[in-house]
């Protein structure tokens, strides 16, 4: 018995070794992802927004979402308090000690999105123009995307027996017709503008250079969570607008390097399986010998 215990320990040590060594050379796609070449995006400037919510209404129309009249006490109005299954885009007022500010929230279209890393069958993916879109036939409604999104963006149709995941898809259906996203088109103050990602980033930096007294010296989304295709400018600290994510590391990077480390090429599980099989075969045989000896006694 002690012999086979030793062999079992050996098997485990070997399997552990396999796992450890396969964890060292990480897959190339664990490198920080870069912005897609054809990336488009939006630039929102909190100093320009007057909170008229024309963008919220336009968003509803463009996506044929029902008005959200579910807020208690506000049943006569389309008055969502949070991004939800009828609200892909929302304007919020943030009060702080010195100054109030509006902020627009919608999908940030991360460069390396956590939701895409989470999605089992790739219903959520970065598709044309780097836009994160949802593809119904591949979604079983597990809601793991909601758990992992650092901005709590994907919404689930809780009231439906055949629920969808609802989020801003940057009006990709309008882009295909040569139109802008609805929110950018209707904004009377050009507080939110649409464009090529590179152009928007340059525009954001030039606005800060032109008026350093007004803007916080930071383009939110340039580096945060590994970069987002929607960029923000503000006159109040970004934390006051509810942007509490400071890390520049993409959310999936740690999890994926662990996952890839263990499962790279499926070598470690296969090796572990082979070893387990051998150990058990051996043990079974020795047991049989032991049994027949016991019977002889």
């Amino acid at each position, binding site marked *: 018995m002690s012999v086979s215990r030793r062999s079992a320990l050996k098997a485990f040590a070997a399997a552990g070794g396999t796992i450890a060594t396969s964890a060292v050379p990480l897959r190339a796609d664990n490198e920080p992802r870069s912005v897609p070449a054809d990336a488009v995006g939006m630039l929102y400037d909190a100093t320009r927004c007057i909170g008229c919510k024309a963008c919220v209404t336009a968003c509803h129309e463009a996506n044929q979402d029902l008005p959200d009249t579910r807020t208690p006490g506000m049943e006569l109005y389309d008055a969502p308090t949070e991004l939800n299954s009828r609200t892909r885009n929302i304007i919020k007022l943030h009060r702080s000690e010195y100054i109030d500010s509006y902020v627009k929230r919608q999908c940030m279209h991360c460069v390396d999105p956590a939701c895409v890393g989470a999605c089992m069958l790739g219903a959520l993916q970065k598709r044309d123009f780097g836009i994160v879109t949802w593809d119904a036939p591949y979604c079983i409604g597990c809601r793991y995307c909601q758990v992992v999104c650092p901005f709590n963006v994907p919404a689930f149709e809780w009231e439906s027996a055949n629920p969808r995941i609802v989020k801003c898809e940057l009006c990709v259906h309008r882009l295909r017709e040569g139109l802008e996203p609805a929110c950018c088109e209707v904004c009377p103050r050009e507080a939110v503008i649409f464009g090529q990602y590179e152009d928007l980033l340059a525009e954001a930096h030039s606005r800060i250079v032109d008026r350093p007294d007004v803007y916080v010296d930071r383009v939110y989304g340039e580096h945060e969570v590994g970069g987002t295709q929607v960029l923000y400018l503000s006159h109040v600290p970004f934390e006051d607008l509810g942007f509490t994510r400071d890390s520049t590391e993409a959310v999936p990077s740690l999890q994926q390097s662990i996952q890839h480390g263990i499962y790279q090429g499926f070598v470690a599980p296969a090796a572990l399986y082979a070893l*387990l099989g051998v150990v058990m075969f051996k043990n079974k045989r020795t047991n049989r010998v*032991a049994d027949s000896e016991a019977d002889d006694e």
Partner: protein
Amino acid sequence: MNSHLPRALGGKIVTRPYKLLVGLFALAMLLIAWRMVAGLGATTAMNDGYPFGLWIAFDVVTGTALACGGYAMAILIYVFNKGKYHPLIRPAILTSALGYSIAGFSVAIDVGRPWLIWRVPVYGWRWNFNSALLEVALCIMAYVVVLWIELAPAFLEKWRNAPKPRLASIVGKTADRLDRLLPWIVALGVLLPTMHQSSLGTMMLLAGDKLHPLWNTPLLPLEFLVGCILMGYGAVTIESCLGSLLFKRRPETAMLAKLSFAAAVTLWLFVLIRLTDLIVRDQTEAMFAGDLYSTMLWLELCLLLIPGIAYFWPGVRTKIRHLFSGAVLVVLAGAIYRFDTYLVGYNPGNNWSYFPAVPEQLVTLGLVAFEVAAYVLIVKRFPILAGHSRAETA
């Protein structure tokens, strides 16, 4: 020597408590029907901030760990070749098979579009290998099948003696073939939980800073793996104690005392990993913050330390009562650890909150009731539990 062979307990099945269990299950099925028609919003308290609720945190994440008795015993018996524990394996595999089947069923009612679940194993060309959840899903599906195959000999043994000779001969041939394959199936039965139990930990790493630092560690997969083995030993002990009490059998004290050694080693390994990780990641401040999170952490640790330290008193190990309470504490600690990782330590911000709704709780209760009822039915009709040790003269 034949006295250790498993045999059916026999006896009446439909007793009064059994009717209660079936009633609870029927209620759960009604509520599930309502959920299918009215959607998850009407029947649960889950929301966009807390998209994983009781069904995932308890039925799946905690339930499969409680169902790791089969895994933990398989490691001990087949890998470390401790044949003496053999009488414990069949009941453990049965609880595992039931627990994992219930977990799979819970997922099916929890996801928004259950009628598309078949696409997850079938649509191989769509698999996202970055998704820890995909790995969990595929492994659990496969493991449910493996567990029932591992349990098949218990059913075949009964049908082998069927009065119809043709059926008996088919069953006999299947049993022999299965016997030859069994080592490879048992090997799968050790590999699959190793993979998906650790991946259940990996999954929550992707929640990023929504998960409190006391639980958010790169070692989550390792902690989940060691934790489920620990809970597996605990569950086997509890099951054996309750079984001897309920079915008026002689308690398997000597064997459970020996098993408590394996449990103690696993327990201290878990505590050591947990504490070392917290200290290395410099979380001492959060550990003593005095808030909800630090309280939960110390609750986990104290529930483990009590049986962990008590183990060193030899008197404790020989009393079935102490072995039982120790196992309860261990299982409780493991369950709280998993609840903390999936619910308590998870904070999406924005004032979101979640507490399971009554229908949600009743569904979970009903499914547990089903599991107990099915267990009782099977051990009474099929050879699962080892025979009484009174004939120990050989």
